[in-house]
């Protein structure tokens, strides 16, 4: 049997890796990937806490399900905008997309 700590440590590491990605990457798709990593970490947290502690209502499971759905929707939306931006100016680097001061 695996204790709760292990899941939490795993999720923390994934979250930090994702956060590093967000801060260091410049390509919009790669930033999106890093955000997905962070959301995956959140999902692990929710399900772990839910399975261990909240055995009456299992809100965490439902939360994780909602997070999955919303994250997928966000990817779809963001990719749509990325494609529009690429069509407008042939780049998806948010550094080069500098019509506005970043």
């Amino acid at each position: 049997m695996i204790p709760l700590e292990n899941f939490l440590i795993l999720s923390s590491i994934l979250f930090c890796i994702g956060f590093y990605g967000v801060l260091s990457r410049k390509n919009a798709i790669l930033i999106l990937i890093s955000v997905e990593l962070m959301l995956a970490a959140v999902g692990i947290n929710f399900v772990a806490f839910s399975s261990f502690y909240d055995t009456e209502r299992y809100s965490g499971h439902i939360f994780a399900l909602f997070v999955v759905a919303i994250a997928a929707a966000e990817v779809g939306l963001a990719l749509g905008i990325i494609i529009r931006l690429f069509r407008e100016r042939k780049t998806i680097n948010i550094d080069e997309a500098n019509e506005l001061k970043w």
Partner: protein
Amino acid sequence: MMNNYFLILPEISLLLTGMLILFLDAFSKELGVGRKIFPMLAIIGSLLSALLSFLLIGNNETLFDIYKVDDLTAYFRILLSLILCFLVIGSHEYNDKKITHIGEYYFLLLTATVGGIVMVAGVELITMYVGLELLSFSLYVASSSLINDKQSGEASLKYVLIGGVGSAILLFGLSMIYGSAQSTFYNDIAINFLNGDFFNLEFLLVGLIFLIAGLGFKLSAVPFHMWAPDVYQGAPTPVTAFLSTSSKAAVIGLLFRLLGGPLLGVIEYWQPLIILLSVLTMIIGNLIAIQQKNIKRMLAYSSVGQIGYLLMAFVGLSSYTLSAALFHLSGYLATNLLIFIAIIIFYTKNKENSLINDFKGLANNQPFLALIISAGLFSLAGMPLLAGFFTKFILFQAIVQNGFLWIVVIAVTMSTISLYYYLQIIKQMYLFEDNDNNCVSKWNLTPSQYIASSLLFLLVIFIGIYGTPFYSFAEQSIMVLF
């Protein structure tokens, strides 16, 4: 248990209006409806929602344990619906001219308003989060709705990416708080936190840091504000107005629910964070605003600064400070909306460079518009006879009463500094002649523009001179938390 679905009629009316607009838009050729009908429908829907919410004042019922309909919800319902209503009345000519997908656009504004209401009404973390994302998603899409404008797409991309990061951080915080309190229901969380050692302190601390950082992203509080100026500048101006009014109001409402409810028992842990956030936000927001040449960026930084004043209310949390903050919020929203509507009216006729120079000599060409813009700016700076003075006075007094004089001194200093950059706009309008002929020399406002701007103008003056009824309603709404 029977649930009284009548209680969510305002949201239903908003959503049904949105659906109707989408439907009519999709079949506009077959049904032969013109573009004029969409703003009409949006106005009717929001007015209906405001009216229904007004009738629902005084209820105190919780649907499914997750959706609370009480006076606080009613307050925000009325606030958000009326903001939408005024915004559509004031900006539909602008939208008609610049936005191609007009049906989707109004649908998005309506769903964003629903999202904001759900954020305040939800008394459970999942519901709250879904409301937050509903609001955010609507605004992501709405800010990209200037199809031919490169800035709009870029602003939207930045908003989506940084909004996504903010959501992820917020969610991590929520998961830690869930792990600490072992429930997502506000009532259970409050009970667990009040029970002392039943919760896990380390998780709670981490959760609070991430929660406040995540909400800081949504509020554009310093140091999480970097997206705000870009998005404000790139988005269509009505969406910018919505961003700086409704979306801020909804997050503040969420903070009322969350910090004044389940997290009230652990105030000593999050209070330092809020103080830090509030002080940084006030100082840096106002200082950066001084250098801005673009009016939308300047207003973005100014609204960052204004958020700092609102966050102060949570520093010494009591029913007084919260009611004062709610009162100040309403005054701030009316003022900010007034300025934005005036700017939208201006750019409906003139070429949109969004520079402060555009407003050169406006006092000669269009005295009414210049008057309401300067009234709005003076009100934001907290000058007397206008809403900003009275509401800020009450708010600051309440915070001093709770023993935080030093933070109020910072706030008052910053609001003086803010006067400096507001005066830059007023200077352009009154002190200079329009030598380069930036703006169309003389034109008449349409009746709807007159209605929206003068009603808000009167409201700003009324709150500034006699704000007691608004304060009483705010206090009555806040009392449901205590």
